[in-house]
């Protein structure tokens, strides 16, 4: 067995608890002293930093939700000044308002450590070429795995996403050992490989680390077959760090959480009470080691469960199950966050009536988004080519705003059901 940080990954539970308790105590003090938002929240419930002595006291702390980040946009929740910050990332948000996250040098190190643990758990070593096909940019995917690879001492190939034939060529020519991207992109690369007449055993690739979107066991098998590799899951969200918050080992029965930095809890989303191990509920993280953005009991909206059974890989870190889905309105399409309001924004900008519906399906294991829009005077034409041009205009505006392609389907006026309350804007037919 091989570990990146064996002293943590295989630490006795008691030692881990001590570390967590110490980090939580310090974190609560930092939050109270440096983040006015938390000082106010703690004061409201009469909580003093010294009330938090051990990790068990975490249940006394208030929750943090995404809206808090939006309300304090962009830097209001940061606990450090510009002098300590070294990196900013952001997740795509509703029209214009993104969720902004920041990192200190230490934070980046902790995150990279998580990603490096994931690479090692997937069988990677300092001698491997790590082919990173996640997008590089404000999205945490690309740089997250990249930094993890470098910290490990492996060789990062920063391919970023897109240009799939070139991806295949690099897989072949650069001898990539481990591929990192979204599962749906891995499928697409696999398809491209087949179309180019290349057999999976003609590329040296051994493993893949896939995350940033929900994927099924079936899809894992498909990817493994298409690329001739073993496929591993990785989990992360920018608010906490990015990919590497938790990762799969060879046993593949859940993802080990880097609980030395990110302490997980499962709560009942209705009562907000903690749930015992093995029960599904909302996943909550406390960034006990983070300096820049030390979120307290952040509600991820992901539905998962925790297990502490002994793992055959030797790691003692708690495992979380693949999240079952999200409870809020955000859609994750091929790893990209899409909000219905962004679609609406595009439609309105093109001067059309906002009568639309988003249909998400899984086609050949790839997320496919169709935006159904009712035909309006503005795009109608007596010529098919005129309508097709309007269709194309909408599709390209969608792509540039959402960052992910959508099929456009034009409907007759009043084809969509009208609602007096909240319109049904999203029909998600994906079955994970």
């Amino acid at each position, binding site marked *: 067995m091989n570990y990146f940080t064996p002293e943590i990954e295989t630490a006795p539970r008691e030692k881990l608890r001590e570390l967590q308790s110490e980090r939580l105590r310090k974190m609560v003090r930092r939050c109270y002293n440096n983040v006015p938002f938390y000082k106010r929240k703690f004061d409201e419930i009469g909580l003093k930093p010294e009330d938090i002595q051990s990790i068990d006291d975490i249940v006394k702390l208030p929750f943090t939700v995404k809206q808090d980040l939006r309300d304090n946009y962009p830097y209001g929740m940061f606990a450090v000044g510009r002098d300590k910050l070294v990196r900013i990332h952001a997740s795509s948000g509703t029209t214009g308002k993104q969720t902004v996250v920041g990192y200190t040098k230490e934070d980046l190190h902790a995150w990279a450590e998580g990603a490096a643990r994931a690479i090692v758990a997937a069988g990677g070593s300092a001698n491997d070429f790590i082919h990173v096909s996640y997008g590089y940019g404000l999205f945490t995917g690309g740089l997250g795995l990249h930094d993890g690879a470098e910290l490990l001492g492996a060789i990062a190939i920063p391919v970023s996403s897109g240009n799939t034939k070139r991806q295949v060529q690099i897989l072949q020519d650069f001898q990539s050992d481990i591929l990192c991207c979204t599962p749906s992109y891995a499928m697409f690369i696999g398809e491209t490989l087949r179309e180019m007449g290349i057999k999976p055993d003609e590329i040296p690739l051994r493993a893949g680390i896939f995350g940033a979107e929900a994927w099924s066991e079936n899809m894992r098998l498909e990817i493994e077959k298409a690329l001739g590799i073993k496929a591993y899951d990785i989990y992360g969200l920018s608010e906490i760090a990015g990919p590497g918050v938790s990762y799969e080992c060879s046993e593949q029965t859940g993802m080990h959480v880097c609980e030395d930095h990110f302490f997980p809890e499962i709560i009942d989303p209705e009562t907000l009470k903690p749930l015992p191990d093995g029960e599904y509920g909302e996943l909550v993280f406390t960034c006990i080691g983070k300096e820049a953005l030390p979120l307290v009991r952040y509600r991820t909206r992901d539905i998962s469960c925790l297990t502490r059974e002994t793992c055959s890989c030797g790691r003692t870190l708690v495992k979380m199950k693949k999240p079952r889905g999200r409870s809020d309105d955000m859609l994750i399409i091929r790893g990209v966050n899409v909000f219905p309001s962004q679609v609406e924004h595009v439609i309105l900008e093109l001067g059309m009536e906002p009568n639309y519906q988003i249909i998400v399906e899984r086609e050949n294991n790839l997320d496919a988004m169709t935006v159904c829009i009712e035909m309006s005077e503005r795009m*109608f034409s*007596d010529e098919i080519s005129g309508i097709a041009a309007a269709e194309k205009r909408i599709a390209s505006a969608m792509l540039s705003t959402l960052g992910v392609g959508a099929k456009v389907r034009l409907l007759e006026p009043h084809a969509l059901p009208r609602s007096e309350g909240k319109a049904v804007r999203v029909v998600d037919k994906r079955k994970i």
Partner: protein
Amino acid sequence: MEIMQISIFAENRPGRLAELTEKIASLGIDVRALSLADSADYGVLRLIVAEPEKALACLRAAQLMATGTPVLGVAVNDAPGGFATVVRVLADANISVEYAYAFLTPTTGKAGVILRVKDNAAAAAALQLAKIELLGQEQIF
């Protein structure tokens, strides 16, 4: 000498054309000529009707996506080469035909053709010069 054509948007799904044409019938719209153009997902039903303005208002009131487009109607000899003559005149005048469809007129010995071109005035001038008979709304009904 333009004729007002009515175009209706229709989704491509089984039974939709039947529903649509039944709707047109129930609105009492008298159709003289029609053509259906389609893509994989939708089609455009084009109609030449009596009282197009009134028909258009009725269709819109029935929540259909309908629009009016001025097109040309010509009478061609119901004999081999009849339509070819018309197209040749337009080609020589550098006018391209977007689409066309034919129908029978009450006028014996002649067929009617609806022509959709970009520039109706230029096309009409070229056709008149070639002594091709243009049809107005009143000649069709």
